[in-house]
């Protein structure tokens, strides 16, 4: 695609994308305690991808996300199911959450919940889905 790039958009994207991605990861990690979560985080990360697409076109998006977005969708679904199975194995029911405390030097105790795995699945799935949609709808067909 041949787009005349606005310098303002390019500069804006270069600053916004890392911020958005960082914020999305923050939402993903805190999601099971405070407002946030995989879906909200995934959408924010997708909006970063959307910015990349608007600025650098589908080539740019493919460079920024160098994996097959549809496989990413499948991976996300698989992770979410895996989180459900963790509950099945440790607590006896599908999707029941379980957690373990991990001691990390300097930071201290961190609770790792299987919800985080579920959220990570949703996060991945949302990114994969939005990227698929953008690439399918936004790429010129021959």
């Amino acid at each position, binding site marked *: 695609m041949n787009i005349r790039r606005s310098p303002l958009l390019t500069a804006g994207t270069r600053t916004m994308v890392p911020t958005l991605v960082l914020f999305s990861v923050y939402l993903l990690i805190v999601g099971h305690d405070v407002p946030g979560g995989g879906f909200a985080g995934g959408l924010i990360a997708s909006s970063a991808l959307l910015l990349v697409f608007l600025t650098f076109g589908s080539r740019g998006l493919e460079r920024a996300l160098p994996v*097959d977005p*549809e*496989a990413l*969708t*499948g*991976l*996300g*679904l*698989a992770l979410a*199911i895996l989180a*459900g*199975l963790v*509950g*099945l194995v440790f*607590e*006896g*029911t*599908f*999707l*029941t*959450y379980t957690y373990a405390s991990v001691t990390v030097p300097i930071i201290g105790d961190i609770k790792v919940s299987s919800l985080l795995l579920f959220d990570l699945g949703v996060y991945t799935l949302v990114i994969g889905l939005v990227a698929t949609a953008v690439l399918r709808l936004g790429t010129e067909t021959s």
Partner: protein
Amino acid sequence: MSTMATLPIVIPLAAAAMTLIVQRSLKAERVIGIAASIASVAVAIWLLVTVDQDGAIVVAIGGWAAPVGISLVADRLAVLLLATSAVALLAVLIYAVSQKSTDEELRGFHAVYQMLAAGVALALLTGDLFTLFVAFEIMLTASYVLLTHRAGGTETRAALTYVVIGLVASALLLTAIGLIYAVTGTVNLADLTVKLDAVPGGLRAGLGWLLFMVFGIKAAIFPLFFWLPDSYPLAPTPVTALFAGLLTKIGVYAIIRTQTLLFPSDGPVTLMLVIAGLTMIVGVLGAIAQKDIKRILSFHIVSQIGYMIMGLGFFTVAGVAAAIVFVVHQIIVKASLFLVGGLVESSEGTGAIDAVNGVARRSPWIAALFLPSALSLAGFPPFSGFVGKLALVEAGFGVGSWAVVGVSLLASVLTVFSMTKIWGGVFWGKPKDGSPFPVARGMAVATASLVAVGLIIAVGAQPLVEYAERAAVDLMAEGTYRGLVMGVQG
């Protein structure tokens, strides 16, 4: 135990995820899809046997007990339909893979197919009205993809009708659920059985009919059926067979479940019987007017839905049991008839009655597959359709609803008439010159297996009827469902 009841949903979901990951290789997708479908059949049959012996299995998903959390309830009715639909899903998938064109043309076919299977399983197992809505959405979204991918002028127009009707029905269903929640404060089916008792009679009836209408759109009852014969015939054969066998029947299941559980009646419901009669007659008259195998069969879907609604409308154990038997029979027979129709299309190049002649001479084996299914649909003894219709007629006599029973018999005669139209037009007559196109062996095997399952149902009619009666007793006994679901912790 509780693990097994979640597997019918988890297996297809996991398979969908894996097919998406490996989608560079169609072969791997096919292996995963078929393996998942075989596993689903095995699990469903295990559930069928276990639930009948040891009673229903209830799972509180995520460890949240009802009415707060979402329960999965694998009772007799749910697992019977689960097993039947799993068999149909497997046969249709083998047909689709053997036909090759379906999954070669549609990228991600296997993922969508497994999502649809997951939606069907969730709809059957859920004990929660809102989750039922979600299950319908999963099913419908998958069906939109399957129906619209072969885009062309006519196809897109017909698919648009289907999608718009689907969306309107979903919006209405959501509204109905919202209203029920506003009135009672719960969407858990078991909880609703009690909470609805406090609701004034008129309001309760209104909610009941609203739900009946919404699921009626999905089940294609009169007068809400017109979208079906327009859209179904245009999809690829395996997709049509799947829709015909499963989707409308899940609508009927939802009607049976919600009406018996939430809006029980002491005697026959006249309005329901009138709707059932009209659905039967209008559907079959529409079928007679058609000139294409798939279109004829599509109108028959509508007509046969009427029989199921009739069984429910009697509101007796015998009536509901007969409706259940009929649903099982229809899932298998309808899917196999469409697959046979697809075989005719594959070997002759078209399914138009005027253009095809003498298939009985040209490909006798296709005729041999068509005949038992067609006779079964029309209700000839000793086929499974006869078993279902006999049970329905007996149930009708039991409550003295002579009129609707008469209508159903008339509709049966007309069904025979339209089947002879296919038989006379397609299978008899002077064969045209040239040999038929070759048909992939897997397509024939898949169709033959499904026809064989139909015959097994006919032979094993007694156990099926008894099973359906036990399921109907569960449904009609007040408080059974509530007793099952409430208090289950994980």
